[in-house]
């Protein structure tokens, strides 16, 4: 995803001279194309995220579209108040980009697991929040984000994720979700790089005779309320999947809309169950341990369907 992001960013920077990127001393190799092509529009702020985000707000006040690039929790939780006061409050044209949403840096330990970022960023007024599901969605989302005014948050996975979409995502309409497959028994709603697991779960359910729809939400704020309402009207069971705590993130956003409809649909949230990760392991290992790999999603969905 990060390479898809950089690819589109380079294209947009060639078109729009006002785009500037600030990195918090990260992106070795990844940002090489930008250093090579636009050396006067990429800034290393050092390992100083608070200063980096305030600086981004100041740059935006001079007419720049500013990308703030870092990994894990460093571009969000560390400079959170700078995002709130300096960027979101005045509506600064700052795009916060996180590489490594969820367990991407699994083996590096809890400090590097970004598992509350979606909830925290979603809580701040005025921030448009994106979590694309694969490289093709990343391309579409990056382009839309760079043309969206104001403060945005882009949560990416890592490099070299498998494609979930067969080809490009054409004509994505912000903030709509993207239907990957239709289904009639249950809807699996997914935000972010966990989409590979959600899609795999649908395959496994198919083999059990359960027809699951898979819907990716590359934009989780504003959440497409009408789309959520339609899904909760159509399905008696909706499962949300996020590589993130279930508190306050994507699943919560879906529940908020659904609860207001009062139509009795049951929503099941897959994600970290309000806990820290205390296990070492790679991304897929941690997904399995914490119950958000394709197989576990399928098993739990089947169990929920059998319950009621």
């Amino acid at each position, binding site marked *: 995803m990060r390479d898809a992001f950089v690819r589109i960013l380079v294209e947009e920077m060639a078109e729009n001279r006002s785009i500037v990127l600030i990195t918090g001393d990260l992106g070795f190799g990844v940002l090489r194309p930008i250093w090579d092509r636009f050396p006067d529009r990429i800034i290393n702020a050092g390992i*100083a995220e608070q200063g980096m985000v305030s600086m981004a707000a100041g740059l935006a006040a001079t007419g720049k579209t500013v990308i703030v690039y870092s990994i894990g929790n460093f571009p969000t939780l560390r400079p959170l108040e700078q995002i709130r006061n300096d960027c979101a409050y005045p509506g600064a044209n700052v795009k916060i980009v996180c590489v490594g949403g969820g367990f991407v840096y699994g083996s590096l330990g809890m400090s590097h697991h970004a598992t509350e970022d979606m909830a925290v960023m979603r809580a701040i007024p005025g921030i448009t929040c994106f979590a694309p599901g694969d490289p093709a969605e990343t391309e579409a989302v990056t382009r839309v984000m760079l043309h969206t005014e104001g403060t945005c948050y882009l949560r990416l996975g890592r490099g070299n994720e498998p494609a979930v979409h067969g080809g490009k995502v054409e004509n994505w309409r912000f903030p709509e979700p993207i239907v990957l497959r239709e289904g009639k028994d249950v809807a699996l709603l997914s935000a972010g790089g966990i989409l590979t697991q959600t899609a795999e779960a649908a395959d496994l359910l198919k083999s059990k005779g359960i027809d699951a729809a898979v819907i990716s939400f590359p934009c989780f704020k504003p959440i497409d309320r009408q789309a959520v309402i339609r899904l909760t009207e159509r399905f008696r069971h909706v499962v949300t999947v996020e590589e993130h705590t279930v508190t306050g993130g994507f699943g919560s956003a879906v529940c908020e809309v659904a609860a207001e409809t009062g139509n009795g649909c049951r929503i099941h949230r897959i994600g970290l169950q309000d806990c820290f990760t205390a296990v070492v392991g790679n991304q897929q290992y941690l997904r399995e341990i914490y119950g958000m790999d394709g197989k576990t999603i399928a098993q739990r969905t089947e169990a929920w369907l059998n319950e009621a």
Partner: protein
Amino acid sequence: MGEYEALVHSAYGEGKPDVTDPETLAWLIRRNGLEMSHISRGSHIGSVFSVAEIIAVLYTGVLNVDPADPRRPDRDRMILSKGHAGSAVYAALAETGFFPVEQLKTHYANGSILSGHVSHKGIPGVEVSTGSLGHGLGIGTGMALGARMNGEQWRTWVVLGDGECDEGSVWEAALQAAQFGLDRLCAVVDYNHMQSLFTVEKTLKLEPFEQKWKDFGWNARSVDGHDVHALRAAFDEMKDNAGSGRPSVVLAHTVKGKGVSFMENNILWHYRTPQGEEYEAALKELEAQRP
């Protein structure tokens, strides 16, 4: 003229105060600061009084700003990073014509745009909202960097508090501004030696403060922060530092609560609001100092 304006300008009789004179403007900042704190029962009058000359000198010919066109693209940007002294900036802006002096009476009030900590929303002449300390220098760094990238000549001014310099983010920005060689970034520290509970020296001591800034790669000098001529000379020198490849800072030594004897160097007046006899006594002292 409204009732509030008539009151704070009453000492001038039929005449108008000369707001191009820094000592007059500093006096008006204190006079308005006293009145605003009295009406609103708002706090931080001690900080407003310590920063009065700094703000007054900036708004009498140092800053390139125009009340008739507050968003003019080539204006200097001024950030009050110690946002709790917001009423000093509000008073300076109102007195120099950015918005009506009468509006100052709404400070802190329900439905007012003049919040206790300085806010940019709807207030001509305010660039950014502050209030949480340690944000302004970073924002100023970004503005100065943006100006340079755009090939523009305007300057960025940031007024900080000394207690504010406890914040690590101030020093992040200090490193960054020096690294990028932002020589049109001018910072002023209101060094009143007091913070919320104790003196700076008893809290987190900053000395050798001037040397710290120099070690971080800044041009730095210290002045008497209540001497308008010394401040003006120091600010003009900062302007001349454009081309030095270094940002500049002036450490303005001030007295918290300056101008009212019982408020001076008294932490109580970080919070207390002048009412009754205290208001009368403060007013009397200020009246006696009017230039």
